[in-house]
């Protein structure tokens, strides 16, 4: 049954219901106060709107708005959904026999995700799926292939198909963006219940730094008693002894290496790096389209991963284009130097408790000042400032402990 409930990428008719304004209506007077504002001030107002759909609506209000909206310098794109497509129908059938976790009849599994599932146990969603929404070239290619092979034949008779527009297309109208934020609907990494995982990476033409914070479980202490049982007043700056629950010398217990905990954390690390490098790879077209970009953030609604690029890094990328990792849709990650900190039990202000808390700080091995396979303690601030509270405190507490060094080859 054909429904008129079509949702467009930039919807004009179906936006949320009227929200009452603070100021009383002035229909009786009929004055358009925008006439008083010079273009520069009107542009200032538009620069504070952010949401690209709202900007699209402004574009069709009147001629003046239409001419000014493309000049805004700040845009936020909320991606509604990520579409699963199958860009490599032949290769996926080749590895179909390998089977992995019971993933069911899903369509968009490329080669890499199959391998990932085999090795890492279903941590990584089809990253190629991002390609459909972020890269029109890839999406055109996949549509051709999906027409013949995929099981989406049902869509030909579907009458209420949502029309999808990639951020790249949507942003084509804006010529002067300086700050861009794209928000994916969800984090790419599917983790088991209870596991907490957050990453923050910044990239130039390749990975510059990455910080990962993970925990095997997160609890909240419901008691309202002060943080440390020893002191009587709440201490806003807990010592790490108190936070780690008593006499903990800060070393990593032996069991960590043998009971699979280290291996699990390596898996978290690799998955986070894969997610980050995939996001980076897909941003190339947008970065190429917008010469005026000075800052770029690619986040997700779950708050799982944040990829940032600042002005210098964007410049690096334009000067030295991205090298892909083989045929995979992600940037090559260089050889890395990593430091891992671990605390079996970490109490944070506000009553959050992280069990099996892990912090990993990653940098390419070739970074100057990174000799001897370590990350200089003077660089500590990029690690401890990677996340917002309460996790900022967690990072600060963890870096005070002893650490474990890892090296990883490029992949």
């Amino acid at each position, binding site marked *: *049954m*054909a*429904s*008129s409930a*079509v949702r*467009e*990428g*930039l919807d*004009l*008719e179906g*936006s*949320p219901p*009227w*929200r009452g*304004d*603070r*100021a*009383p209506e*002035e*229909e009786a*007077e*009929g*004055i*358009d*106060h*925008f006439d*008083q*504002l010079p273009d520069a*001030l009107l542009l*200032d*107002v*538009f620069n*504070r*709107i952010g*949401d690209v759909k*709202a900007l*699209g*609506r*402004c*574009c*069709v*209000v*009147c*001629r003046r*708005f*239409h001419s000014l909206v493309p000049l805004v310098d700040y845009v936020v794109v909320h991606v509604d959904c990520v579409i699963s497509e199958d860009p490599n129908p032949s290769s996926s059938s080749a590895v179909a026999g390998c089977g992995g976790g019971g993933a069911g009849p899903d369509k968009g599994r490329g080669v890499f995700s199959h391998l990932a599932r085999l090795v890492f146990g279903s941590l990584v969603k089809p990253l190629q799926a991002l390609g459909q929404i972020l890269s029109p070239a890839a999406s*055109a290619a996949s*549509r051709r292939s999906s*027409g013949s092979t995929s099981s*989406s034949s049902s*869509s*030909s008779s*579907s*009458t*209420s*198909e949502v*029309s*999808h527009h990639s951020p790249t*297309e949507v942003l084509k109208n804006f010529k002067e963006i300086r700050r861009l934020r794209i928000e994916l609907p969800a984090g790419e990494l599917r983790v088991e219940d209870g596991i907490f995982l957050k990453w923050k990476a910044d990239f130039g033409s390749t990975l510059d730094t990455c910080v990962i914070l993970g925990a095997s479980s997160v609890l909240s202490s419901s008691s309202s008693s002060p943080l440390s049982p020893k002191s009587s007043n709440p201490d*806003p700056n807990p010592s790490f002894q108190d936070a780690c629950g008593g006499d903990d010398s800060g070393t990593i217990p032996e069991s960590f290496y043998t009971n699979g905990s280290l291996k699990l954390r390596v898996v978290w690390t690799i998955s986070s790096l894969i997610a980050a490098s995939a996001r980076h790879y897909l941003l190339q077209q947008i970065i190429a389209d917008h010469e005026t970009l000075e800052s770029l953030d690619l986040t997700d609604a779950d708050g799982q991963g944040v990829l940032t690029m600042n002005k210098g890094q964007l410049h690096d990328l334009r000067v030295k284009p991205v090298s892909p990792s083989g045929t995979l849709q992600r940037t090559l990650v260089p050889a890395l130097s990593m430091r891992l900190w671990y605390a079996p039990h970490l109490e944070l202000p506000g009553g959050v408790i992280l069990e099996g808390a892990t912090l990993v700080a990653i940098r390419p091995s070739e970074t100057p000042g990174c000799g001897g396979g370590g990350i200089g303690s003077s660089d500590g601030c990029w690690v401890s400032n990677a996340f917002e509270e309460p996790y900022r405190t967690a990072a600060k507490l963890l870096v005070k402990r002893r650490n474990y060094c890892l090296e990883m080859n490029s992949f």
Partner: protein
Amino acid sequence: MAEKIILKSSDGEVFEVEETVAMESQTIKHMIEDDCAGNGIPLPNVTSKILSKVIEYCKRHVEASAAAASKYAAEDSSSKPADNELKAWDEEFVRVDQATLFDLILAANYLNIKGLLDLTCQTVADMIKGKTPEEIRKTFNIKNDFTPEEEDEMKVRLISGKSTKHIAVVWQSVVKATEPPTCMRLVFVMENGNGWLPAVVTSGSRASAFGGLGEYNCLRCCLAYGLLR
């Protein structure tokens, strides 16, 4: 003893304010530093009504900065309640009619008061967010100066990336293919996984979807006219 600065509004009213409060305005600050403030500063672009509001804002924020500074000196990190209070005060401050709000924007711009400019412009931006174009026009009494054809063109471009020329061609075929015609004017052409499929038809502002046979014919027409990739 705190210095007092004289400010004169466009309608001749005289305001005496402390120097620290007046210096919230970069414009006035430069005038004071350049020693032009002798007999009072004339502000021909600002009425007394607006100037009194601006002074109220500056006073409140100077007080807040002073309080924050003393707290910092006392190493008291509990600034959150004060921040929330200030925020609430700001929200109340901009709860005014549109004329006043826009006058405040102009005054903040002229007097170069960043905080007030941020606050007032953000307020207008928030009033725009979440509204349809028609609602925006209604709220601000903006005249729609597009022709109907231009409006259609923009809507089609926004949604489909195609021009109305393609659509017009399809419509002609549709009218012939389905008797009696099921649409008045085909405006929106939506894309599905296999190509272009007309999904919404409008007659003026009424939107209704193609159903059943009509859709299929539309699809055939689109195929015929090379609108499928």
